């Protein structure tokens, strides 16, 4: 145990971030990195893309994180298979980062963009978020996709776009609550950073103990 009371023997926590294409998963990570660092956490990231390394390269260019702390996994097939049915490639990537950077406290694992049915294996992650875009329709939560229902934290992103497409955020939260049995939901706007502290508060309470 460290002076701050943080358990280190178990290695870094692993947090999954899933959600449909364009929902803002990479933007969320870009927002999470500085806030997690402010709280004293050392971060590494695994990204998943179908046949490119675009998300990893985007993060590496930001200057928010040392480029060698970001590893890209190219799934080559349906992205959910690499985070659920056979997460071997992602487990190996996370273990490689933990070996290379032994003081890492959290590894963020971004899924490739997928549909509402994608979920994470708990062999891969300790906790996972599902990100949806408010502008994709305020009926998404009540459609009860496994990602919506089973995720530990539902993030409704791009809240600034809701009024432009007639999406009712209150309804999204209410119907999300109903299908999730009270598990937490956070509204975010990654363009302004709104809601990011709340996301990190949940992570620190539920899985990043001691921060």
């Amino acid at each position, binding site marked *: 145990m460290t002076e701050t*009371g943080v358990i280190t023997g*178990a290695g870094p926590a692993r947090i999954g971030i899933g959600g449909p294409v364009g929902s803002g998963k990479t933007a969320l990570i870009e927002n999470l990195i500085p806030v997690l660092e402010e709280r004293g956490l050392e971060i590494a990231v695994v990204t998943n893309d179908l046949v490119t390394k675009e998300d990893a390269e985007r993060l590496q260019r930001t200057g928010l994180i040392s480029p060698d702390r970001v590893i890209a996994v190219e799934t080559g097939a349906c992205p959910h298979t690499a985070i659920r049915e056979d997460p071997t490639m992602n487990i190996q990537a996370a273990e490689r980062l933990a070996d290379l950077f032994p003081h890492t406290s959290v590894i963020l694992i971004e899924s490739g963009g997928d549909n509402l049915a994608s979920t994470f294996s*708990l062999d891969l992650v300790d906790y996972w978020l599902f990100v949806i875009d408010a502008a994709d329709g305020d009926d998404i939560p009540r459609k009860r996709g496994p990602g919506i229902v089973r995720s530990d934290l539902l993030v409704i992103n791009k809240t600034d776009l809701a009024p432009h497409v007639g999406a009712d955020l209150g309804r999204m939260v209410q119907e999300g609550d109903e299908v999730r049995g009270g598990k937490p939901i956070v509204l975010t706007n990654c363009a302004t950073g709104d809601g990011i502290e709340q996301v990190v508060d949940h992570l620190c309470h539920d899985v990043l103990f001691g921060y």
Partner: protein
Amino acid sequence: MISIHLTQALGHAGDPGIAERLHNLSHRGCVDYLHVDTTDINRRRQRLTSEQGVDCMITLPRDQLLSNGAVLELADDRAVVIRISEQQWLKLRPRDCAAALELGYLAGNLHWREKFQDEILAVALQGPEVAYLERLHFFLNDGRAERAPV
């Protein structure tokens, strides 16, 4: 509320030595239980409140898993033992081979966890049963499959 970190499984409640210590602690009301849902047993990190109201932050090594009866703390004044809720199953009996093939395909396509018991397909429920029945209503309504006793 008291908060504690639990960082490893020390053994099982039935292990010689541990069982005796738990027995002695139980006379003083010092054996506390953590109830874990079956869907969460693969989690290495989670935060739960024990029966006695202790806030437990679990951080297990990657090579350890929670199991029913696992002992996560064994001190002079407190033991913490895991109790895992019983897995609920939805058992289905297909009418014939063709229905069995279709049912197996559906279950696989929906990524359900299942096991085979002779002619029964048993689906491990990881959410409300009604959500599973909604996906099966065509099978159940036209008789291609029926529910079998649990």
